């Protein structure tokens, strides 16, 4: 990727330095800064949905409570724990990469991918369960009792927000798999492991989105029951 420079430099430039940067330090600094700016765009991307959630929950409080009660709280809490676990393994992966321990890096990357897969598995089970109970919004939506319209709005937001989050999980697992392959080939060293780091930032962000989705969608009106 880095093309050799014509002029003989007093010290050989590190192989991973891209030509437009002066030093590896500047390159990694820019990459991390760039990822944080991307995370800001993600915050505002999810922000649109959180705004719709806030407005409609303010208008249809009762309906949202009735919808939230339909959720399987055990699955939700378990999923939150799974994702927090995957954040830990991701942080350990970055930690091992920084220490140059390749085997530990591979182990933790694999663990993170596995936990991510588990999360998606639980979501899949929940989704099929809701669909079976005719809770998928749209023409097929059926909900006994009052406030059917508000409950449908709750499920519209539930499926859109958790669906978008799941999509980000799938992309995250794709990134971690490529990292796994690159790490397997020994691409990362103690000096150059920036891709692992910025993928970690992305993964932790997706975990934080779930940390907010869980209480907002699963825990409303539990006491009402």
């Amino acid at each position, binding site marked *: 990727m880095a093309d050799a420079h014509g002029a003989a430099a007093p010290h050989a430039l590190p192989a991973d330095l*891209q*030509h*437009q*940067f*002066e030093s590896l330090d*500047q390159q990694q*600094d*820019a990459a991390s*800064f*760039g990822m944080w*700016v*991307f995370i*800001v*765009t*993600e915050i*505002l*991307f*999810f*922000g*649109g*949905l959180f*705004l*719709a959630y806030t*407005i*409609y929950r303010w*208008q*249809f409080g009762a309906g949202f409570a009735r919808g939230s009660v339909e959720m399987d709280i055990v699955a939700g809490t378990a999923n939150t724990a799974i994702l927090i676990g995957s954040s830990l393994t991701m942080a350990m992966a970055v930690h091992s990469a920084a220490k140059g321990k390749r085997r530990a890096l591979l182990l933790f990357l694999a663990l993170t991918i596995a936990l991510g897969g588990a999360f998606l598995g639980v979501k899949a089970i929940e989704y099929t369960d809701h669909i079976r109970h005719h809770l998928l*919004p*749209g*023409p097929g939506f059926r909900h006994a009792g009052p406030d059917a*319209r*508000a409950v*449908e*709005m709750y499920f*519209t937001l539930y499926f*859109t927000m958790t669906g*978008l989050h799941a999509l980000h999980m799938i992309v995250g697992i794709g990134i971690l798999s490529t990292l796994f392959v690159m790490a397997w080939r020994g691409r990362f060293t103690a000096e150059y492991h920036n891709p692992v780091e910025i993928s970690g930032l992305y993964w932790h962000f997706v975990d934080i989105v779930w940390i907010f989705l869980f209480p907002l969608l699963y825990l409303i009106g539990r006491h009402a029951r």
Partner: protein
Amino acid sequence: MSAAEYLPPVEPEEPRDNYLNVAYGVRSWLLTRDHKRIALLYLASVTFFFFIGGLFALLIRLELLTPAGDMVQAETYNKFFTIHGIVMVFFFLIPSIPAVLGNFLIPMMIGAKDLAFPRLNLLSWYIYMLGGLFTIWAIVHGGVDTGWTFYTPYSTLSSNSHVIPAALGIFITGFSSILTGLNFIVSIHKMRAPGLTWFRLPLFVWALYATSLIFVLGTPVIAITILMVAVERTLHVGFFDPALGGDPVLFQHLFWFYSHPAVYIMILPAMGVISEIVPTFSRKHPFGYRFIAYASVAIAVLGFLVWGHHMFVSGQSVYAGLVFSVLSFLVAIPSAIKVFNWTATMHGGSISWKAPMLYAMGFIGLFTVGGLTGLFLASLGVDVHVHDTYFVIAHFHYIMVGGAVMGYLGGIHYWWPKISGKLYPEVLARFAAIIVFIGFNLTFFPQFILGYLGMPRRYHSYPEEFQVLNVFSTAGASILGVGYLLPLVYLAWSMRYGRNSGANPWGATGLEWKTTSPPPPENFEVTPVVDEEPYSYSAPGEVRVVG
């Protein structure tokens, strides 16, 4: 004072290896990571979309020649103005200056070899083209008739045109803007040449930094809004459908949260271009450099607080209307400061009337009119009457066409020697600038009168008493159309037959003028070290750098 007198007596020879002749062939262009080549890719695609949008503009004006609207059916006319809006806003005005001039110049202006993420930069162009493909597909297959604003519940329930492909086109192109903005922010923060502090940066870089803030903070919100419209339209769920509990006004909040800052995305880069042209052609340090720089960032930040002035009569509460109105007046102040500072820069200068300066002077005049008519729309009492009428159309065309397009053309002419290494034909360029100025005013000034008379926008047929003013407007549009074709012709001609321009034909300051024209692939032989204030014209003896 004929044009020939300024030219260097001996024609400078073409520099050995520059970014244009270092590699040839389609692969060298389609897989390039050189920010200068990517800028030229953008130049070609942005020009293509400009003339598509321009074509539909002419069709609209032709249709409005007659009150009965008997050139095309209502359905077709609705598609004309929708496609004109979408193509011009998302595929020309938003990307034009940042992606063409910004991509080309920012690395050179900050003394870097390239942007921070060259591969993301190329990806940004491919994403832009993919989005463009979706939109072209929608146009060819029958077009979309929701207006570029996609208001619900019409766009989600009632329209039977190709809403989803057009919406996807905009959704995808949004990511191209995000990548460009992200690239600029990281590069300006992390890759400035040694000694180049923030207040030694050219004002163009300040303007594009502010624009990038809006790219990064605003575009994601339009992306999620378009996604929600697409989900609602395909799965019949109720985000914005009143029958299912949704609220159409919520769509307007989400839409305008991005779309008002988007109009600052369109004007801020043009302001940056003017802040470069006026000092160069007045040969004077810009008056109030820091105020112009701070004004750019202030516009970007305040621009996010005012979106409600699009919704004064749309069912938004009275109190929210009051708050958004006072904030809208605050956002007008930085623009006023800039206009006063540009004019003050010309005071006591040595002003050359070359084409870029003509465009800049035209910009200052027309942007002032555009900005002041914005105050009419910001004051609640008058907006109730003129909202959604041709007064609004005239206002934003004075800003977009009188401002952004004049700024873009001025910038293209100003940096053309640096991009192509050639000089464009000066007399023809001045003639084109004057034609554009006249055609523009004849097209859009009558629309202010039509607006206050109450002619609503997006009308396929209108009452008879509005016809004469519409005929004036259509006449102006045809002049404007000719005016825009001229630069296309003589700039392309100059690529081949123009005289070599040398490194600094205008005697301008700025790092980009210290390297050769066209610049080498890595911009500078040796990364420059900056040790002087920007726009330092008054250094004695250094009259003009030759070749």
